């Protein structure tokens, strides 16, 4: 395989990773963040608004 074919394989693989899979990662981390934010809100309520 010529280096140009190899480079195209790598870049297309990375594009695919970035376009589809990393968006999935961002969504999952966002959902986890939402769950933690809900807990922070509850903690704030339970502590009577103390920081």
């Amino acid at each position: 395989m010529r280096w140009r074919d190899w480079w195209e394989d790598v870049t297309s693989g990375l594009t695919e990773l970035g376009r589809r899979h990393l968006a999935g990662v961002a969504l999952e981390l966002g959902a986890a963040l939402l769950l933690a934010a809900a807990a922070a809100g509850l903690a704030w309520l339970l502590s009577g608004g103390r920081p």
Partner: protein
Amino acid sequence: MTVRWEWRTVAYYVGLIAAVVGALMLVPLTVAMLSQEWAVAVDFVLSLSVAVSSGCGLMMLRPHRLPDLSWAEGMVIAALSWLVATPLAALPFWLSGQWLSYLDAVFDVMSGLTTTGFTLIQNLDYTSNGINMWRHFLSWLGGQGVIVLALTFLVRSLPGAVRFYFGEAKGERLEPNIVHTARAIWYISLVYLAIGWTALTMLALRLGLAPGRAVLHGLWAFMATWSTGGFAPMAQNLGYYHDGAFEFAVMLFMIVGSLNFHLHWAVWTRDRREIWRNLETVTFATTVTVLAVLVMWDMSRRGLYAGTAALLRKGYFLLLSAHTGTGYATVAPDQYFGASGPLALAAVIAAMLLGGSASSTSGGIKAFRVGLIVKSIVWDIRRLLAPDSAVVIEKFHMFRETVLDDRLVRSALTVVLLYVLTWAAGTAATAAAGYDLAQAAFESASVTGNVGLSAGVTSAAMPAWLKVVYILQMWLGRLEFMSVFVLLAYLWRGMWGR
């Protein structure tokens, strides 16, 4: 004659996995050599030689032509692989001299591979990089599954491979082809490894750790978080870093690590909405939130932690660590176990037993089963309220719309019953060893759910027979019983011919 033929096939695959365990020791061996820990490197070379040679010895027993595996053989291989891999992986620990006995070393390996996180190591703060790498690597590998590992790297077109994949309680396949499924699991883990390792290394650097140490601590913390294992390189556990940002990042990775691999794959490749609709994620989010309220309310009213930040960093972190099966703690056991009230402790015990998602790195009953049981209760109520002639259908969404039926509910209830029985047996055993009932119930839930939070029972000083009970409990909890039962039946048949 039939028994002998089955035995040789099983021996071949178990030997294959033993050889893989040996080959994996190259990773900590490399770390030990880079850290110029020559004595540790020699321990790894010796252990590696024993594991590879015993694995190759077993592989030489292979029958002339490998037959298609039956379901029973697949399950026996899954269960037996753990029993063979564990004592081999314990060799470097034992040789290092940091464990008081070989049993203690075996305990720690089972704890790592089952992603439990209990440890009996002595002088953890002075542990070499090579040994720490092996501890965390075992935990990370255990999260993926020992069988998944073998399927990924060694088996290309194994007939019946699906049968030992299911034997390890990994649940549904991500892809139609089982080997592609195993590779997809590794792909997901490696992408997260790159992200999590980078993030935690940056945070460790920000805390002032030397660059080399920050890289290793970032890697180990991520491995133990993603695998929901909970091993830590320092005796103070996560409290060593004493940093809100580090703890917050770990919280996010604990949540993501406890998600179903099938869900990751669906969100990454097919349908992003799955994360909001999936029965398992909805159940997990609900139980985490409800139990977190109980823990934080109890801690708050007792004046244990007064402010929002303290409640989050101590109370919520503890609950999340218990629910995801990670077992990380930001405070010492006598602070969370000794000072918490009964309500908070009951909530943490419940969280440890409930666990994360099916087909994830987590242990426990699993959110999927809890969701199914709740759905079945709703279904029963709807059936009671409906006219006699009405046909009531209850559906749930988990990657596709599925009609709830009695068979699914029965299978979920069976696993729940077995978990509760195992927890009760472990509680009775711990109490029989002289510990009080609350301590026993907490520790047993932690062992059964593969969590690793301790009420002060697990230590090198505990009776040897209790260590064996805990090793079996961790193994049963991880494999979700069926593979172990099939293994016992297989051995029974081999011995008595029935």
